[in-house]
């Protein structure tokens, strides 16, 4: 009896996988990488993927953040694919296949994209290097320039004030 149930379960399982594969849109010929998730997980997973797919009719907005009809339709497609068991790489691949790399809001760290990922780190390192080299080149215990310069600069004024005070005293 249990063997019969097992065979039936396998048949149902293979039929639903086949259905999922035939229901897959063009370009997603391979079967879903995952088992169909429970219904309560479909929404959050779809939202996660929609956050990294660019809305084609917006300026720098993800499909998740946009309310444009095109973005809503793409989010709907993402949700359908997640429900079938397709994973993030397969779904983003599906959109890249149609819209190009441009559709990714987060470019993958490969090829020339490494410039984008590494340039902030490189710029920060260059900035830190400049600051450190400037600090090292400064004299260790240099006296305050203001304090050092003050007596010399004040001398002429001091002398004049004192002279004028003396003149005043003499007049009185």
């Amino acid at each position, binding site marked *: 009896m249990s063997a019969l149930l097992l065979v039936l379960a396998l048949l149902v399982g293979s039929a639903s996988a086949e259905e999922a594969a035939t229901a897959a*849109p*063009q370009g997603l010929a391979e079967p879903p990488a995952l088992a169909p998730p429970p219904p309560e997980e479909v929404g959050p997973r779809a939202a996660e993927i929609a956050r990294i797919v660019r809305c084609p009719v917006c300026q720098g907005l993800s499909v998740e953040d946009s309310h444009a009809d*095109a973005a809503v*339709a793409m989010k709907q497609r993402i949700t359908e694919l997640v429900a079938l068991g397709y994973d993030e790489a397969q779904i983003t691949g599906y959109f890249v*296949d*149609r*819209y190009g790399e441009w559709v990714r809001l987060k470019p993958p760290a490969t090829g020339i994209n490494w410039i984008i990922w590494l340039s902030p780190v490189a710029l920060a390192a260059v900035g830190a290097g400049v600051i450190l080299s400037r600090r090292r080149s400064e004299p260790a215990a240099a006296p305050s320039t203001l304090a050092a310069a003050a007596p010399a600069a004040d001398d002429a004024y001091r002398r004049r004030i004192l002279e004028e005070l003396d003149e005043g005293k003499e007049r009185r």
Partner: protein
Amino acid sequence: MNWKILGGGGLVIASLVVVLASGFGKNPQGVSDVMVGREAPDFSLVDLDGQSVSLSSLRGAPAVLNFWSTWCQPCKIEHPHLQKAASVYGGRGVRFLGVLYQDEPDAARRMVKKEGGAFPTLIDPGQRTAIDFGVTGVPETFILDREGRIVQKITGPLSYDQASAILEGLL
């Protein structure tokens, strides 16, 4: 002069120039040109009269697939050009199809009745077909060869002369 700072600044500026130069060399509207040269994704949709049409049934003849909507002004400019092209090239075996994009079928029926409908317009629920073709807006037109391969994608209104030049090359 601080040569270190000058060298670092020069390196940063040179990197920016390289990145910007490569970006300016590309057409920002050509984001979905990845579809050109590939086999068109198949679909089976229903037209405004309730007739079912599949792309695979058009194999063997060049086809013009136009995504449009009634709220799109450039589509209205393009409409008479496509009508003319359909009347001229339809007789020479080219199949013309419209696909409604983010629009109500009733609005499309009214426009077709008023402006003329020389070819069927298909209803695309959930914009599945538009997404399959990587459509980013309307009008967008895909020209398919006899094998169903996308040979050209036109973003913006297609003129009769433009359509004629492309189709003559396919016939």
